[in-house]
């Protein structure tokens, strides 16, 4: 089995007395989409900036395809594409010129087919001759993605790629990221939109205060950490819960018009439904809600904050 595409071992970054990254170990596997989640200032951007060559680590080693990002920077940078968080543009040049220049820096002549493909995928074909200054915010962000792709990187780092992008375009970008993954590109994504991570990621890494708290497959994480909630809507409100349901941790909601019962990960609602039938309550509707990544994320960060507080 081939080794990880990106590997970090004991990577730290300190700015004076502030530790932005603290002995981070992380592997990113070939062809996966890894979502790097964490609150503002957690160290997400610092981490990907170290791999992309924008920031130098204070300690530890970072490698891409087995080559050190400092010693073999020419090799690793050719393998990496970075979409930075901050929108940038060169007001002197057009969209097409910008893409040609960016490819040139990587030692690549941008072919007509490749250029066309990028422009079409990012819906910039009509703006190909427009000065980048005249582009809307969303277009400028798409151009950033195009710039990161011109040299066909093996690993693409997307730092908050859809911030400020409308819903329709976000869906298109997600589809494009999935297409890239299908073609074998490894994607590392930082995002504030947990919905984005949930929709795209194969694995999730949670980072807070410079430390990786957890790395796990998204589905497994939701399975393991994400419980379920059963909501029973009643046709007539009740004043108190039967003892059997109380014993299962049920709660009365909506002024007695609904009952919520939580099931732990892997647990079932069988006993609750049996107790409900036994009590003969007037059931109007039953629905279950599975925990989302957002709930898991908050619970992980909450747990970590709790440990810190102790």
């Amino acid at each position, binding site marked *: 089995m081939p080794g990880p595409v990106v590997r970090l071992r004991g990577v730290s*970054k300190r*700015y004076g007395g502030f530790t932005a990254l603290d002995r981070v170990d992380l592997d990113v596997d070939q062809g996966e989409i890894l979502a790097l989640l964490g609150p503002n200032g957690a160290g997400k951007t*610092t981490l990907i*900036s170290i791999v*992309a*060559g*924008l*920031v*130098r680590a204070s300690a530890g080693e970072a490698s891409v395809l087995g080559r050190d990002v400092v010693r073999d*920077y*020419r*090799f690793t*940078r*050719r393998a*990496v594409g*970075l979409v*930075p968080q*901050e*929108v*940038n*543009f*060169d*007001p*002197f*040049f057009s969209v097409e*010129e910008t893409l*040609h*220049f*960016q490819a*040139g*820096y*990587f*030692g*690549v*002549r941008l072919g007509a087919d490749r250029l066309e493909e990028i422009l079409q995928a990012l819906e910039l074909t009509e703006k190909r001759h427009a000065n980048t200054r005249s582009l809307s915010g969303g277009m400028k962000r798409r151009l950033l993605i195009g*710039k990161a792709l011109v040299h066909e990187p093996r690993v693409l780092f997307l730092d908050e790629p859809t911030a400020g992008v409308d819903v329709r375009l976000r869906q298109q970008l997600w589809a494009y990221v999935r297409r890239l993954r299908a073609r074998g590109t490894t994607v590392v994504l930082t995002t504030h939109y947990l919905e984005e991570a949930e929709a795209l990621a194969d694995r999730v890494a949670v980072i807070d205060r410079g430390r990786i708290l957890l790395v796990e497959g998204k589905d497994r994480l939701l399975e393991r950490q994400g419980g379920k909630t059963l909501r029973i809507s009643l046709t007539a409100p009740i004043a108190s819960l039967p003892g059997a349901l109380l014993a299962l941790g049920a709660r009365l909601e909506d002024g007695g018009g609904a009952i919520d019962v939580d099931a732990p990960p892997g647990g079932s609602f069988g006993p609750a439904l049996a107790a409900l039938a036994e009590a003969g309550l007037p059931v109007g509707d039953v629905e279950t809600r599975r925990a989302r990544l957002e709930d898991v994320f908050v619970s992980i960060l909450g747990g970590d904050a709790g440990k810190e507080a102790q």
Partner: protein
Amino acid sequence: MNLLGVQTLFVKEVRRFLRVPGQTLLSPLITTSLYFLVFGWSLGSRIQEVDGVPYARFILPGLIVLGVVTNAYLNSASSLFVMKLQGTVVDLLVSPLSYAEILGAFVAAAVARGMLVGGIMWIVGALFTGFGVAHPVLALLLLVAVAAGFAALGFMTATWAGSFEQVNFLPTFVVTPLTFLGGVFYSASMAPPALRWLTRSNPIYYLVETLRWSVTGRADAPPEAGFAVATVLAAGALLAAYGLLRSGWRLRG
């Protein structure tokens, strides 16, 4: 070596200054042409000759030095500073270009602009004073070295600068006064003792005098001095700029 990368950055930098020719080529041309017309043509009719050289022809080398130096400096300084301001410097920092390649392309483009401005000024001046050049190859070598040195100074200033005011500090408060007090319009040997001492303590004076010798064949200072100043300036500034870029100061986190 990433040859295509260097070529791309060079072409991009040259296209950048050609996109705004009014600011980058026409403006210095008009300013220095006005100096030439006012000081060389109108005043020159009264001064006649300095060191045996017609006054208009006497001042031309100094004006060319001023044009070349200012434009080479401003090209790398303003370009890198705008890249920092716009955030597009990230595009270079994540690329496989080495530090020497980035610096080399910036300096080459800045030298190109400096030489283009200097060349245009020389053509305009020569229309009035004649096209003869005593040592054309040495004149070119001197100007390329001087332009490279000031391009590297501009690169360093842009790395440090946090505002356009800081970018403009060197040309406004250092280069222009030193050039004007560097014998552009007068011969040090004809100046009062205090000004003569001040002029001969000024490194720009030796650049002006050596270019004057290269163009007219006559100068107030030994031409070797100007070549020595240009060589030390170019080598020192290029090495310092390379070291600064390599250190990552204010560019890489």
